[in-house]
């Protein structure tokens, strides 16, 4: 707990350092004045190429890393290290028969994958991937475009992307996709709220919703430190938002087969697949931009040789490294965590993430108010007092909550030793429990069933 207090205090000092660098303009800091329309077009194509190549790579990367985590090789036959596996899978999908079920609503059935596929790319157009570079004789930022409300655009596009899911689920005319689509939609919109709210703290610090401006205001301190709680909430919501494990409830195979895309095949299915992976890149890129300083070099490296590594194409390197760290994080989660239950997932979103993030926004607003001299001229003292009061309230709340839980938690009665086959099917032991000795079981089954020698053999081999 004292860690949080010291973190907050550290954040405090840092925030003082960045306060002067806050520009007074809301407008994007990225300067597109030397970017003719044809260069914008080239950059747009490059964004598509970047995303498609990265998608091809990340699917291979995911399967290889998951393979390693599960102690098996993963795809390693197609091309060097199996690198062409995704390409081969994509080609295979193009050669598959595309079926539209008889019950389906034909138009909506076609529109849904189009929305899911096309919407995924839009958000990347406002992500700053690097500083100003020279391209075909023009000085242009490594960013397709920027608007004063760029982050709002990302959230809006995420909202429109949900239509792809709900339309796919509804138009299939089948029970599993309908249920999967509804579930998935409820999940995505629920976590979208917490995601949007977690970003408010960043806007409070940066004073702008333009992505280039947000990156610029992280010059001396990345927002992951002053807005550390927002970062944690964002990371949870971005996994929920992209339907990834442990939150991939839409495709609980045991319950819903494939979820909303059960009836899709061939290229239409590929569009959903592509959309999902591009969305992973989008949310990771947004996390990089909002919390990890965007394309800026990590502290330390940034100081080398008068900021040499913060110029030109170097920015793209740092951006890609940060982006792929998030990709690894996604894969790591998938390799480590089991799927959560749907009611637990929704309860966590609505009863914990949303109210706590709202309170966090109020706290950050008060901290910002103290820094902006709302409570008097001595901003430093006011800020320390506000941070202290907020930390105390948070501590008290945590203490109360923990006390409540301790009172509520009644240790369940558990026998020391269990017979794993007592109920007719195998049951794993709880932590601390012993399994009954297999030799006893074998004796019992021998004594009980004289006419079934193979059964007792099985019992033996289980032990």
């Amino acid at each position, binding site marked *: 707990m004292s860690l949080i207090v010291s973190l907050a205090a550290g954040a405090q000092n840092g925030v003082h350092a960045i306060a002067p660098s*806050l520009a007074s303009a*809301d*407008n994007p800091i990225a300067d*597109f*004045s030397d970017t003719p*329309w044809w260069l*914008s077009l080239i950059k*747009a194509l490059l*964004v598509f190429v970047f995303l498609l190549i990265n998608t091809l790579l990340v699917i291979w990367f995911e399967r290889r890393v998951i393979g390693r985590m599960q102690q098996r090789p993963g795809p390693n036959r197609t091309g060097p290290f199996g690198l062409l596996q995704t390409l081969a899978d994509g080609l295979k999908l*193009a*050669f598959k*028969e*595309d*079926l539209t*079920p008889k*019950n389906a609503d034909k138009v909506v059935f076609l529109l849904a994958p*189009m929305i899911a*596929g*096309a*919407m995924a*790319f*839009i958000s990347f*157009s406002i992500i700053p991937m690097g500083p100003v570079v020279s391209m075909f004789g023009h000085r242009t930022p490594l960013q397709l*475009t920027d*608007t004063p409300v760029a982050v709002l655009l990302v959230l809006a596009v995420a*909202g429109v992307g949900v239509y792809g899911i709900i339309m796919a689920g509804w138009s299939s*005319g*089948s*029970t*599993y996709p*309908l249920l999967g689509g*509804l579930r998935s*939609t409820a999940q995505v*919109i*629920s976590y979208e*709220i917490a995601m*949007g*709210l977690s970003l*408010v703290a960043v*806007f409070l610090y940066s*004073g702008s*919703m333009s992505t280039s401006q947000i990156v610029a205001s992280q010059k001396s301190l990345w927002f992951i430190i002053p807005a550390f709680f927002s970062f944690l909430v964002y990371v949870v919501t971005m996994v929920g938002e992209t339907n990834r494990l442990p939150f991939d409830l839409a495709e609980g195979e045991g319950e819903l*087969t494939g979820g909303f895309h*059960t009836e899709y095949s061939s*290229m239409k299915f590929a*569009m959903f697949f592509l959309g999902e992976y591009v969305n992973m890149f989008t949310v990771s890129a947004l996390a990089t931009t909002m919390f990890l300083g965007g394309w800026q070099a990590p502290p330390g490296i940034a100081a080398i040789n008068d900021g040499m590594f913060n110029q030109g194409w170097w920015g793209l390197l740092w951006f890609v490294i940060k982006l792929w760290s998030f990709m690894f994080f996604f894969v790591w989660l998938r390799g480590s965590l089991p799927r959560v239950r*749907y*009611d637990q997932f*929704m*309860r966590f979103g*609505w*009863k914990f993430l949303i109210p706590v993030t*709202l*309170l966090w926004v*109020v706290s950050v*607003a008060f901290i910002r*108010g103290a820094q*902006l001299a*709302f*409570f008097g001229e001595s901003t430093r003292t006011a800020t320390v007092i506000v941070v202290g009061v907020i930390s105390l309230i948070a501590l008290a709340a945590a203490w109360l909550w923990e006390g409540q839980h301790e009172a509520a938690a009644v240790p369940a009665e558990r026998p020391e030793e269990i017979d794993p086959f007592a109920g007719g099917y195998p049951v794993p032991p709880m932590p601390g429990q012993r399994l009954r000795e297999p030799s006893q079981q074998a004796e019992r089954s021998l004594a009980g069933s004289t006419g079934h020698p193979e059964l007792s053999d099985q019992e033996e081999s289980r032990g």
Partner: protein
Amino acid sequence: MSACAEPDLREETDLGLVRLTRVSPYLTVGGVVLTGVFLFVAGMGARRLLAPYAPTAMKLTTYECGVDPVGDGWAQTNVRYFLYAFLYVVFAVDAVYLFPWATVIRSADLGMASLAEMGIFIGVLLVGLAHAARRGLLRWV
């Protein structure tokens, strides 16, 4: 908050004609949407050229894990999803109010009053959420 200066996107040429030198951000975003749609159309075209098409009645039935489908696909579902959609609208609108405020809080003439007002606004929302939770809307089972 000063009004955002609309950047001048046009430039006069020697002939006195106005030509577009720089693209408005939203036009660029629109272009990306169109490119995305084009990607989808191209994918569909590739599929049309490459994939076989030989539907049979069995293939076109809905998938229910191998058994014959029972009943209509558009089944009745829990009304709770509808309530979540309502709650979503409430909080999405709330976010729309919070975002602009967050970007202008640095302005000195807002001061304590805006902090208190936002605190009350968020408090009211939290009371609403608590009410929804108390009435069992957020309980899934």
